């Protein structure tokens, strides 16, 4: 492993470390009510793996890796789409309640 390679690796690790620090700092003390939505929100974010899946799909020449990347893309997309939609549904519940119960609220709740 050459010094140049090691330096690139180190740069990647620096970015990794900083991202971890952001992740730690970004979660302040959350009300228990928000735990599940927050978990679900974070869950959607790692759907970013779709980017990786697309990139390997673009390179896939072997049938084997074509199959693998197909599954990967499908999995990742499910993570992304489902994740964001379900999180949004959870969060609809936290809309600032109107002082007088608006029927709209009930409809939304029913819809969900």
């Amino acid at each position, binding site marked *: 492993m050459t010094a140049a390679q090691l330096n690139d690796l180190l740069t990647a690790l620096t970015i990794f470390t900083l991202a971890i620090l*952001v992740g730690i700092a970004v979660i302040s003390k959350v009300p228990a009510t928000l*735990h599940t939505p*927050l978990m679900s929100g974070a869950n959607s974010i790692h759907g970013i793996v779709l980017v990786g*899946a697309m990139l390997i799909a673009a390179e896939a020449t072997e049938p084997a890796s074509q199959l693998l990347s197909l599954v990967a893309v499908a999995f990742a997309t499910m993570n992304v789409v489902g994740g964001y939609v379900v999180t949004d549904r959870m969060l609809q519940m936290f809309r600032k309640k109107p002082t007088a119960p608006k029927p709209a609220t009930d409809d939304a709740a029913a819809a969900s």
Partner: protein
Amino acid sequence: MTTLEIVEILVRIAWLVGAVGFVIGLSRMNSPATARNGNLLSAGGMAIAIAATAILILVRQASGTPVAGVAWVIIVLGVAVGGGLGLYTARTVKMTAMPQLVSLFNAVGGGAAALIAIDDYLGLAAGSSVRIDTHIFIVLDIIIGSITFTGSIIASGKLQGLIPGKPIYVPGGQLVTLALAAITVIAALALFVSGTPNLLLMVVILAAALTFGVTMTLPIGGADMPVVISLLNSFTGTAVAMAGFVINNPVLIIAGALVGASGAILTKLMADAMNRSVLNIMIGGFGGGDDAAGAVAGAGGSVRAIGPDDVAIQLAYAQHVIVVPGYGLAVAQAQHAVRELAELLEDRGVDVKYAIHPVAGRMPGHMNVLLAEANVPYPQLMEMDDINPEFARADVALVIGANDVTNPAARRPGSPVSGMPILDVDQAKSIVVIKRSMGKGYAGIDNELYTNEKTGMLFADAKEGLASLIAAVKAV
């Protein structure tokens, strides 16, 4: 610079923008007011990152970089299928079933991360020498991704009830789990040392990790599943970051590390809320067999059944009534009925409050969500610590489909709920419990509250029971 080079730069910038979107979005999800907007922001970042990637692939094709012809078929097909499934399930799932769905989404995310590493590994020419760091990242990605994949599926199954919620002990399961861990580590080390691709070893690792995910999760009680899911969510983040190292892609590294870290913090917060320690939960998973034992404690004692009319009288002439909603209220969808009853009582000058236990129901904040949906005024929803002192002053505690969160056994060691903070319902002057039977709750143990001589049991479905109560109160 060639067009391709320029585009590559622009795409990297777009990815960075996406990552920033994730961070801002996540931070806005810390408070109810901004949460929804935060989620949309994060989704926007995701859209940018994905669109940029698509463009990148297009330009690469245009500039003649060999791209498999089927690439777009794969991508479009995959997106269509995955997206369709995700959208449909997310749209149609019942609110109470959301946690297990999130767990499923988490599973496929981890799976995708593992697949990327596998694909990359297959690409390595046999006999070629593999850099140690490459090897490490690939192996870590496969191991973590696989554990998340199977682990999350099991967790989801437990919450869905497809797999019994209570701890399942494979004979010698603990040993199996440890053995699997050992195998994985040894195989991995062997790979690193050899420094050349070795499919067999990799298959061993893959199989071991997948099984490990199962045996790790099976013995954990369903009540702990939210914490487990959150932990596995953090795992997936880490796996994605590893995938980022494997295919050397910054946005995967950043977003993955972000989720890995924030997920870990969140897991700790959740465990604290159920006052369990994460380690405790997972170790418990590794064979805390004694759990089920204490269940029997405090059973026996006679039960006093009571009718709607008697309850109505008690409520109507009470000064302070505390409603204790639980999972049963949610299943029965009785949130609107309970609000109606409460309003009825308030018109009669009774002071009504709701005691919200942080883990009542099946997901954190379940009760808040439910009652908010029924437009119960916020001020009436009291968190556990605020309401507990008031039970002593309450004339009637009306327990509706709640069980574990009221079980005094939690104050004693040796029961599955031991140590879980509970609502001090048994302090109330009089207690009325609405549930269908003497059926057990989530933790699957008897509740001595029901045999307390202050307690009257109104056996009914929550919704019907409340309906009859409303009628009776009106009649008073």
